[in-house]
């Protein structure tokens, strides 16, 4: 668990004191992905960098697993926290295996052990170990390099990961792929992740909870659906966008609004799977101008239907999630 308590960071500039982070208090539970979201200059990155003490807080405290990080040697602290940055920061003088082995080596692992670990991680990230271990960063594509960046952060299996806009520099297609891979990986790894982003779609996709920042202050902190359904103020509402209801569709699965099949249900018209999210249902509604859409299982057998009324009721009444 990570707890930020009254955390502030002030800078003195020629034009007086600037407060980059202003009295932020929030708590991230173990195994949770918390996205720090906001426009540039809102203090989200500064907040992240205070957690591994690359930036020192002006006031306030940070607890990781109950321990005040103020009393920990920063170098020791950082070796136990995975860190991924937008520019990736792979060391071009080292091979992929050596890059992944940086922290293991700092902790005194043998070369053989850290190489085995690198192989494991590459396989986990769908990169063929034999092909990549001895490459240099200048022989990698952007997507491959960022996967190695993630592998490097996971090298010693730290419980906490800090990720500063890790996928922002990738092209949209690559970004989707690597986000999906990362979500799948997180389902088994259950790391406690703080993830900085300026992209509401990315945040909704990746986050268990989102912390929206505005001018150094925490504007709202809650699950994605809560932010989208009930923005706390005009700033949050405008940041999540006027199409926020459309964004919520991603968060709801067909099975949650489906009415199970009665006998003799019609066998024509468009259909979806129970594991699709409502984006697909909504687009079929618009496309076909129908009131209900059939749900089918893998074999194509009808198992139920989704009605417009059920979708509207779900979006209107309660929070999903």
């Amino acid at each position: 668990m990570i707890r930020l308590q009254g955390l502030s960071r002030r800078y003195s500039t020629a034009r007086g004191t600037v407060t980059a982070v202003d009295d932020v208090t929030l708590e991230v539970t173990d195994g949770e992905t918390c996205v720090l979201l906001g426009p540039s200059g809102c203090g989200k990155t500064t907040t992240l960098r205070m957690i591994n003490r690359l930036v020192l807080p002006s006031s306030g405290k940070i607890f990781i697993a109950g321990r005040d990080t103020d009393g920990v040697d920063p170098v020791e602290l950082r070796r136990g926290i995975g860190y991924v940055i937008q520019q990736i920061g792979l060391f071009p003088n080292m091979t992929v295996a050596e890059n992944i082995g940086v922290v293991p080596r700092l902790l005194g692992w043998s070369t053989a052990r850290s190489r085995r670990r690198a192989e494991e991680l590459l396989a986990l990230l769908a990169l063929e170990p034999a092909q990549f271990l001895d490459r240099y960063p200048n022989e990698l594509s952007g997507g491959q390099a960022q996967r190695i960046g993630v592998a490097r952060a996971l090298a010693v299996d730290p419980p906490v990961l800090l990720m500063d806009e890790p996928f922002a520099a990738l092209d949209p297609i690559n970004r989707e792929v690597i986000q999906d891979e990362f979500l799948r990986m997180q389902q088994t790894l259950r790391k406690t992740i703080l993830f900085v982003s300026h992209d509401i779609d990315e945040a909704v996709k990746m986050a268990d909870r989102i912390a929206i920042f505005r001018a150094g202050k925490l504007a709202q902190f809650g699950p994605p659906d809560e932010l989208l359904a009930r923005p706390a103020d005009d700033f949050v509402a405008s940041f999540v966008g006027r199409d926020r209801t459309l964004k919520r569709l991603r968060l709801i699965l067909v099975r949650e609004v489906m009415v199970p099949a009665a006998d003799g249900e019609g066998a024509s018209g468009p259909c979806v799977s129970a594991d699709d999210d409502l984006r697909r249902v909504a687009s079929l509604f618009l496309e076909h101008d129908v009131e209900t859409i059939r749900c089918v299982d893998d074999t194509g057998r009808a198992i139920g239907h989704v009605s417009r009324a059920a979708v509207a009721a779900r979006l209107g009444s309660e929070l999903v999630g």
Partner: protein
Amino acid sequence: MTTAMAPGRSTLPYIVLGAIALAIAWGLHASGLATDILRYNKDIVYLTKQHLVLVAISGSLAIVFGIAVGIWLSRPWMARWSDGVIQAVNMVTSIPTLGKLALMMSLLGIGPLPAIVGLWIATLLPIIRNTYEGIRAVPAHMVDAARGMGMSSNEILKRVELPNALFVIFAGVRTAMAVNVGTAPIAFLIGGGGLGELIFTGIDLQEHGMMLAGAIPTALLAVAVDFLFGQAQYWLVPRGVNPLRNF
């Protein structure tokens, strides 16, 4: 795929030089100058040793000091002063080497010592500058990643900053050593000895054989030193940051 080709490419200039040298040697032999030159056999051996001592001492001291000072200037706590120091370094660099040797002679008298100090200063400056600039050119986000992963400042210097600056540092060392070897003959003028003795005396006496007996070994030495440092640069700079070895 071209790892095997690359050394071929980097040694090609030396092969061409070798061919030219052979042609010159044949020309000298045909014109009878070779016999003139070889009369100074003993002088050549003796003075070459002296020359090498001048180059080796001033050069190695310059490499050690230059890299150390360059690193020191690149440290964050030096940031306020480093620009000024580099400016001063650039100013001293612009003094002609002959002028530096003359200054050394007025400070330290004549003999090998002022020659070595003069050569040392001339050689030091490109190394300081390239070490400093090379380290400063390491992207900030790379250092940030290293720090965020839990490297101490020393580890960052040793494992990230220096390896990534090494190619530029080597370029400085090569430039510096070319200056050093090229200037060393002038040491004779302030009593430092070396092959300059044959060159300058040969010019004064209009003895072409004597002059060439000094000039040819000097030229060969310059080529040999550059070849050595070129090879060191090729093999010691990690492949991922070595433009000479990239495909």
